[in-house]
């Protein structure tokens, strides 16, 4: 877990949460961006090379690759600066998003379950996500890109805290 000074809070309705995610998350986002680019570009490439597709398809192919590379180069850094999280005795608080920012607050007393999950890429990088669910279908708060060990510890703490709270949290 890494704690850095919150940056640039001017004009925001809420202060940024205290903690940043693991720096390896940047690599995770970058790899995901590249993987998406590959998935979108390869079919186009196949059509162009094998079937000799129309000229405009070459254009879209180049555009896809350029957009993917630019995304992978620029966006993960931005995401890393934006994504933050914080857990106090009273609430879980996250900030995520890239173009549209999203702040989520879930009071601890309303938390129902705490899950950790590791996708294949996350496992490879030693990362994990923690999802905190409330009784609402729209309520889950997910902290992505935590170091796996930190995530496990966090989930354990959260589970303990929420078990102490009474009621069925609806």
């Amino acid at each position, binding site marked *: 877990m890494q704690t850095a000074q919150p940056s640039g*809070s*001017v*004009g*925001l*309705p*809420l*202060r940024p*949460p205290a903690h940043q995610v693991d720096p390896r998350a940047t690599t995770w986002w970058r790899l995901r961006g590249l993987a998406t680019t590959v998935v979108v570009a390869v079919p186009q490439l196949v059509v162009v090379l094998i079937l000799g597709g129309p000229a405009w398809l070459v254009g879209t192919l180049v555009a896809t690759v350029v957009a993917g590379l630019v995304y992978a180069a620029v966006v993960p850094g931005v995401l890393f600066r934006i994504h933050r999280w*914080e857990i*106090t005795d*009273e*609430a879980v*608080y996250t900030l995520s*998003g890239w*173009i*549209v*920012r*999203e*702040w*989520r*607050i*879930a*009071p*601890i007393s*309303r938390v129902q379950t705490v899950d950790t999950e590791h996708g294949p890429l996350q496992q490879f990088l030693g990362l994990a996500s923690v999802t905190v669910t*409330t*009784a*609402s*279908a*729209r*309520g889950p*708060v997910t902290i992505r890109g935590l170091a796996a060990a930190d995530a496990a510890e966090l989930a354990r703490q959260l589970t303990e805290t929420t078990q102490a709270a009474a009621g*069925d*949290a*609806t």
Partner: protein
Amino acid sequence: MTLSAAATAEVGRHEAPWRRLDPRMLVVGPAGQLVRLLPLLLIVVVTGQGDTPRLLIAAGITALVVIGGVVRWRTTRYRITPERVELHSGLVRRQHRSVPRDRIRTVDLTSPLLHRVFRLSVVTVHAADSASAAERNGLGLDAVSAAEGERLRQELLERSPAAPVPDEPAAAEPELLAGMNWAWLRFAPLTFSSLAGVGAVLAAGFNLLSELRVDPRDVPGVDDAAERLADGPVWVAVGAVGVLLLVLAVVGSTALFIERWWGYRLTREPDGTLRVHRGLLTRRSLSVSEQRLRGVEVTEPLLLRAGRGARTTALSTGLGKESQGGALQPPTPRAEAHRIGAAALTPTFSKATFLPDSYMNVALLKSPPSLTPLTRHPRVALRRRMTRALGSTAVLVAVAWVLAETTGPGWIGPFSLALLPPAALLGWDRYRGLGHALTPHYLVSRLGGLNRRTVVLQRQGVIGWTVRQSPFQRQVGVVTLEAVTAAGDGGYRILDIGDADAVALADAVTPEVRAFAARER
């Protein structure tokens, strides 16, 4: 607390016995299916003109259905233990479903026509939002006797372990909150769901015609009328079809309204549940535990709003998003809709405070929370609504002009300009609707133009917040605040509220937010 006493008593007894569905289902189940298969059977028999193989096929289908009904009855068992409701079913594909009783939120009794003849009810139990699909879709007992259904309804809702026993002695008689007023029938043609129903009626009619191999053109008179229309000017044909559709819509929606809302009654039962009775052919009764009621929503779709009508739904945990989910009433005059909303909320409200019931009730009914004067949103919200409405329309207009210049008929360019004034009006209207308020017990918010919705949410019903801000919103200092709740849609948005107001509002409802508010801006 009587719970522990009850629990001890239950432990003392042996396991709750498994029960079968009502034996009358041996008749009603297959009969219902046969009615549904009737067109098919008729076609098989009629087209064969009585040759033996086709009669045998029809007889075979009938036999299979009857056997299926018997097997279904033999293999379906249910029981209610102190902790769970369990349902076993299926011979080949065995299913075991169970719902914890403390998660039960609503109990629905439905009696389709055939069930009514045999005095049977389908009991559907809805549980709180949960991961398992079985619990989300509800657990259905199809069917038990009407008396057993009523008994189950009371047992499941009243003795739901999470619901504390009411302190005051319960009144013996259910309290009538609202009844049917047939003047409300005038709102029937103004509801979109009714229009959709007309579409369904048309489709069904057309299907039936094609199944029976009847060409509408063979019906005497139709062909003649079609020819005359085709010979006349275009506007006559368009007008005739329009009038025909309109008449169909009015007749169909009125018929649907009557079927749905015949015998409508909204009552508060002595056991603390809100109960909606309705239905002409299919009798329905929805029971919402008041412990689970988190608020109400007053919706005014554009047409209904034009007719000064509205509709109120209950926001309860466990009520799904299916149509008619928590409908507390048919479309009614606006004032009546707000009154019902207030009446539905009153008891939960008075229990939460120590003020005398009568005082609270009077105050609440005089000024329903859904009619609380709302705080308007900043002017930039108007600009954003107008940009949205006019921007998207401008794109359409541009496309129309391009089409007019290149391929399409020349008139669509100028014609498309006619879209702009309604778009502007809609934008203005959407802004006028925006607003929020915080009363001592409720968070009230309103939004929407085509479908205006006023949501009244209990403060205690808010279980989290989501704040969203797009770059455009960031420039002008507004956000979209969403109150997260376990009931209804799961979250209700307050659109384009000033950012400081949003944080202050969230803070006032759930003090946990305070720690995260920006200290200086």
